[in-house]
């Protein structure tokens, strides 16, 4: 067996929806890592070292919503509820929703194999994605 990579070039493979979502899943994972790190560094910047434990910092970094730090010992909630953190949380939430809904479609495709069933799965996934995105962003900005 030769050592040449068996990966086809993009031209030979063609660019279709599945391919785009495959790369989106990877890139959105990296982007979510970036936003996670922003949340982590931001929490330390705002004094998490003195008022929060490791799990509480992680919980904040996974979703930078101020409600997630209400149960900690932080002296003031104000810097944690700023528009910047709502923006970071919205970005994380929208990326996560798209990533997660596509993940559910991938799982469903393993069990639902008829083309009609797959069309229904896609329709439901689009409805779920749009409605969850709207509700989630609404919750992040109004509470």
């Amino acid at each position, binding site marked *: 067996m030769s050592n040449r*990579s068996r*990966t086809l070039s993009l031209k030979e493979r063609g660019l279709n929806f599945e391919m785009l979502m495959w790369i989106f899943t*990877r890139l959105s*994972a*990296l982007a979510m*890592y970036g936003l*996670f790190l922003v949340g982590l560094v931001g929490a330390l910047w705002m004094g998490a070292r003195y008022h929060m*434990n*490791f*799990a*509480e910092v*992680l*919980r904040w970094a*996974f979703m930078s919503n101020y*409600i997630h730090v209400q*149960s900690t010992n932080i002296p003031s909630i104000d810097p944690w509820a700023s528009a910047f953190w709502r923006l970071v949380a919205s970005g994380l939430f929208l990326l*996560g929703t798209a990533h*997660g*809904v596509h*993940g*559910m479609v991938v*799982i469903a495709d393993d069990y639902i*194999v*008829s*083309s009609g069933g797959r069309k229904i799965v896609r329709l439901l996934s689009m409805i779920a994605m749009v409605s*969850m995105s709207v*509700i*989630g962003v*609404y*919750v992040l900005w109004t*509470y």
Partner: protein
Amino acid sequence: MSITRNVGLMTALRYKGQGPMLTFILHRIGGMGMVIFISMHVLSSFLGGDVGRFLNDIYENWIFQIFIFFFVMFHATNGLRITILDLWPKLLEHQREAIWVEWAVFIALYGFALFSIISTALGG
């Protein structure tokens, strides 16, 4: 064009994929768990009321946090391994070693998280 399954359920259950298969299964369970957890969490925050408060109280509970931290952190570490190996396909040859590294990182980080969750729960 439709695709048919050619592997029965029992054959699938007997498949022994070892380490990589375990990460695949945990990744799926964790991914599905997160979709269910986050959807219910967002909806209960949106709807509020007694039901919403009841659900969010469950999520605040330390026993629930132990589970959700496991799934989220495993999904994140495993996802980073998949991303790195898929974006640099030459590394795929070292998948088994990568999975060992992944477990080392995951156990260390999850151990810290577990320690702080449990010590907070016990210390009040």
